[in-house]
């Protein structure tokens, strides 16, 4: 995890910083549906904000997601879920992260998540749930804060 820098930082867009500072994010779209518009927009916005994005694409199982996250040594996993399978998928992802001793990886979720499931998902260790209408700016800000960076 990148530590919070206390000394004044040079005001540079993230993309111009050294590669060691890049936040690595895995963006994946679990579930059988094809609603990948949001995932792709977020992936591109994170990349444009200077993060390193690994976009895994559609029909990712929890096993595939966690394997890729560990292999790619990412800081954050971003999952876009529209299929209604969020409870099953996130329970399994949380379980697998624990098995791989990788619970320090951030976990954020976007898509269609009914209110009544929010608490349950937070209990599993989901750091943030971004409902429809969330801006990419809000997502970028959250991830930078999660990583202990000063939000721009």
């Amino acid at each position, binding site marked *: 995890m990148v530590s919070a820098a206390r000394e004044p930082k040079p005001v540079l867009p993230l993309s111009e910083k050294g590669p060691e500072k890049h936040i690595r994010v895995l*963006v994946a779209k679990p*579930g*059988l*549906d*094809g609603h*990948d*518009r949001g*995932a*792709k*927009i977020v*992936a*591109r*916005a994170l*990349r444009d904000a200077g993060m390193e*994005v690994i*976009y*895994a*694409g*559609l*029909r990712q*199982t929890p096993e595939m997601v966690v394997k890729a996250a560990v292999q790619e040594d990412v800081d954050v996993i971003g999952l876009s879920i529209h*299929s*209604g*399978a*969020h*409870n*099953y*998928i996130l329970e399994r992802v949380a379980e697998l992260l624990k098995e791989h001793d990788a619970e320090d990886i951030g976990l954020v979720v976007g898509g*269609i998540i*009914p*209110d*009544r499931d929010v608490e349950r998902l937070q209990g599993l260790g989901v750091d943030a749930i971004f*409902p*429809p*209408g969330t*801006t*990419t*700016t809000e997502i970028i800000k959250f991830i930078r804060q999660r990583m202990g960076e000063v939000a721009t």
Partner: protein
Amino acid sequence: MAEKPVLSRSSVTECEGVSELEGGADHRPSNGKTRWYKQTFDPAVAKHPERDAAFITGSSTPVDPLYTREDLADRNLSYDTDIGYPGEFPYTRGIHPSGYRGKLWTMRQFAGFGTAEDSNERYLRLLEMGQTGLSVAFHHPTLVGRDSDELIARGEVGKQGVAIDSLADMETLFDQIPLEQVTTSMTINHPACVLLCMYVAAGQKKGIAPRDLAGTIQNDVLKEFIAQKTFVFPPLPAMRIMGDVIEWCTAEMPRWNWVSVSGYHIREAGSTAAQELAFTLRDGMEYVQAGLDRGLDIDSFAPRLSFFFIAHNDLFEEVAKYRAARKLWARYMRDRYGAKSPRSWWIRFHTQTAGSTLLDRQPRNNVMRVTLQALAAVMGGTQSLHTNALDETIALPTEENALIALRTQQVIAHESGVANTVDPLGGSYYIESLTADIEEEAEEIFTKIDELGGMVSAIDNGYPQREIQEAAYQYQKEIEQNQRIIVGQNDFLGEMGEPVNYLYIDDTVEEKQVERLAALRRRRDAAEVERTLEAVRCAAGSDVNLMPAILEAVHAYATVGEICGAMRDVFGEYHEQPIF
């Protein structure tokens, strides 16, 4: 702020020589628009600036402050050849001479959730409330050719549509519904050949012959690769199956629309209106070619090709899109493919309001969004319409919210007066200009796809996928930079609004369905299932039409996952190269 980019058309006219236009040997109208800009508009705007630097349509196309007859002249539009009369070529104003005065559009609400019993109950209720056609939403495992008890289906059973694994579920789904009287639409694509056979078999069990069944199966295999992405097979086998379905339906099901070529998902994935139109019609042309390649007479199968468009937010742009669709399809079918029957020239389409425009913040505002979108579909001359429920962005609709959505259509039909005359916006300078512009843009995209070697090659190349992605990103940027105001999202935030009730599908549906499937697997004749599946594999590996073999497997109660599995054994499975 950027300078206004919108006055270019009138300045072009000006360069051509004002005096000639005003002197008018070519009978073009006098150039009053240029004069009006100079004398009246510009001084007024200098004093009271416009509220935005640029005005754009829902697809980010600049809009002029005013449209006049000069705009029609600039586009060389002739009333008789470009606009014409309803029921006559090129059908810009509608395919039926009397519009909705003879028959209103079909109010067809897309529904399906939980088990077949749950959905059957909803269908019976919808028919009782005055709905005139059924539209089946399948859950995702069915959409991708998998069974409810497969690992990959975990958590998805019955969630976003009804769980249909076998003919037994299909029989339950249509229990007590007179299939010879209703028309049924089914949203299913790569496994369409299987689900169509299940519907046919359900009819046969009620004593109804395939030729008496009326309805539509989406079966739009190509748009799966560029938008909806519930693909199963690679593009070439998918097109081979398509050919089999066209052949079989043309021979056996004269009242059945064997495809609903869909722009809806393309637009939901983020395309512009012109891209939606162009990619959809170009997909349609591939299917026409597939029928021709089977040696069929175009007028024997083209009349059963139907379309499905979205109704998005920008009312005028959407109306123009439907008008351009009719005109383009008629022209291409007649001139490029040589169809002789007017029924082959007609574009008949279903419309659904745009799900992605709905918000979970202040959800009741969605009713107004749906109303305006539905109005566009009706003024654009749709044949059938689904209006989204206000809770669509959160879940499948509750019965109460589904009823509001249906009532919205009934209010438009009976109270607004828009159904009293044909193509009520026809002749508007703005609408006619927009119609011509969208038509032109779509034809540019056709040319590009032709240059790439057709739609299958264009998909391999990634061209439509990239275009859609780019437009989606642009739209999102416009919202985030407040160039596009969405009430309750980036302005007029206020409170969240009272939450609405929504339908929650719990995991007991999955348990029930998995149990039901296990019982089916126990009671059916396993040897017969194996024999018929082998026949499907055999047909897939040869050039014999697949449909008879699939129908036989369906009657043996083989499942969606098993039959698609047999085809996957031969055709392989499509995996997308993820790009962003």
